């Protein structure tokens, strides 16, 4: 037996190193911002898909309910998409909470006076719009997806569920208000996620602000047009 016999390895050093790297990356504020950006971009992708499906309401019950049937016919894929969204939303909330705590702790004594000179309304309200949107999403799912909060819910008749609920002015008003807060959140988020991901292309980085603004306008006008359409009779 040789003196220099190699000890059997109990664990793979490369794998454990990777784990260390990932933990350190997550622990850093920049790593957390990257997670915020990635999960946020999943959210924006979902919202863009959602708003384009909503616009099918102008095509009447057959278009909306047809799209609903198609989505449900995909079975496992729909659940996979829902799982990805759920994980993204939960991670987004968790990391936002952790980052907010770091920020709040970093200034134990507040200023007597502080004047904004560079930030905007959207950036300063991110935490509040975020908390509100989390509540809105929960209500929205209970309202129009499961029907728990819907007084007049008909399973699989999405068109009826949407149109009948937006005939109630206070539901429409709350919805429009929520979409305005969504617009604020997306206005800052869709822009700043590119900053967090280090996108600095000399030619195309200038497009981030206009594109983020365009996404915001498309989202908010698209969503709000549905209750407005119901109210004006364009959707009936």
């Amino acid at each position, binding site marked *: 037996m040789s003196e220099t016999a190699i000890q059997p390895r109990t664990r793979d050093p490369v794998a454990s190193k990777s784990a260390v790297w990932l933990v350190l990356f997550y622990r*850093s504020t920049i790593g957390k911002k990257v997670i915020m950006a990635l999960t946020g971009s999943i959210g924006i992708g979902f919202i863009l898909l959602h708003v384009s499906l909503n616009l099918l309401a102008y095509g009447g019950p057959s278009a909306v309910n047809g799209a609903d049937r198609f989505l449900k016919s995909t079975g496992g894929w729909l659940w996979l998409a829902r799982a990805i969204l759920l994980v993204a939303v939960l991670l987004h909330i968790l990391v936002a909470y952790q*980052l907010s705590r770091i920020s709040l702790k970093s*200034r134990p004594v507040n200023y007597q006076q502080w004047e904004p000179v*560079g930030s905007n309304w959207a950036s300063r309200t991110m935490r509040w719009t975020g908390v509100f949107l989390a509540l809105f999403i929960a209500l929205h799912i209970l309202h129009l997806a499961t029907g728990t909060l819907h007084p007049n819910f008909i399973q699989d008749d999405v068109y009826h569920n949407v149109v009948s609920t937006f005939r109630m002015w206070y539901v429409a008003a709350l919805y429009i208000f929520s979409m305005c807060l969504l617009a604020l959140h997306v206005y800052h988020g869709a822009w700043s996620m590119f*900053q*967090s991901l*280090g996108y600095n292309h000399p030619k195309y*980085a200038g497009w981030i602000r206009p594109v983020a603004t365009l996404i915001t306008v498309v989202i908010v006008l698209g969503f709000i047009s549905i209750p407005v359409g119901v109210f004006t009779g364009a959707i009936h």
Partner: protein
Amino acid sequence: MKLTLHIWRQKDAKSPGRMVQYEATEVEPDMSFLEMLDGLNEKLIGQREEPVSFDSDCREGICGTCGMMINGIAHGPRRGTTVCQLHMRYFNDGDTLQLEPWRDKAFPVIKDLVVNRDSLDRIIQAGGFISARTGSAPEANSVQVPKTNADQAMDAAACIGCGACVAACPNGSASLFTAAKISHLALMPQGQPERSRRVINMVTTMDQEGFGNCTMHRECEAVCPKEISVRFIVELNREYLRANFKERETILPALL
């Protein structure tokens, strides 16, 4: 000119502080803000009162020693200006001004308007250096630097480390400071050997010091006396991702 000043008075790091009202008289429009405070202090000394402590050194806007919040804005209302280069002609007779120190967990108040900014030094110590050849200086043109890189590195290197970015940030983040230092060296050929380790170590130190994260409010950019752009924070994020994803194998020994 006469001014009413509300100044944060704090005896030492352990004592609680409070805002105290003073009247500044005989203020000339050509005085700098610090000269106005010097005048107030002479008056206070004459009255056998404790003068107001504030930091200053070069008084020509290049050293980064001075700095305070004036009416809630770091370095006062003028853009691209340190407090020492802010002149009283930008204020009106009878104005009321609130003077507060930089506020951050990583900037503990030493006295009145003076804060301890050692945390910024520790970020530099973690990686804000290059490995340089000893001996005689090399011929200046022996290392070629593209003009755009040289210009951007110069813009980043303009940072005087005053801490206004941290003070103005709603998150108390030192991202602009750290970003300026990292970008400056990452853009130069001399900064390449330590490039990946530098960004990992400086960001880790920045987080450990208790600074907040960057949410892109852009307050830092607006108050920076050297008008350093937040695009350097984008550069910092890119450097951090590059080190973590592309250079993971080379930085791992530094992490373990």
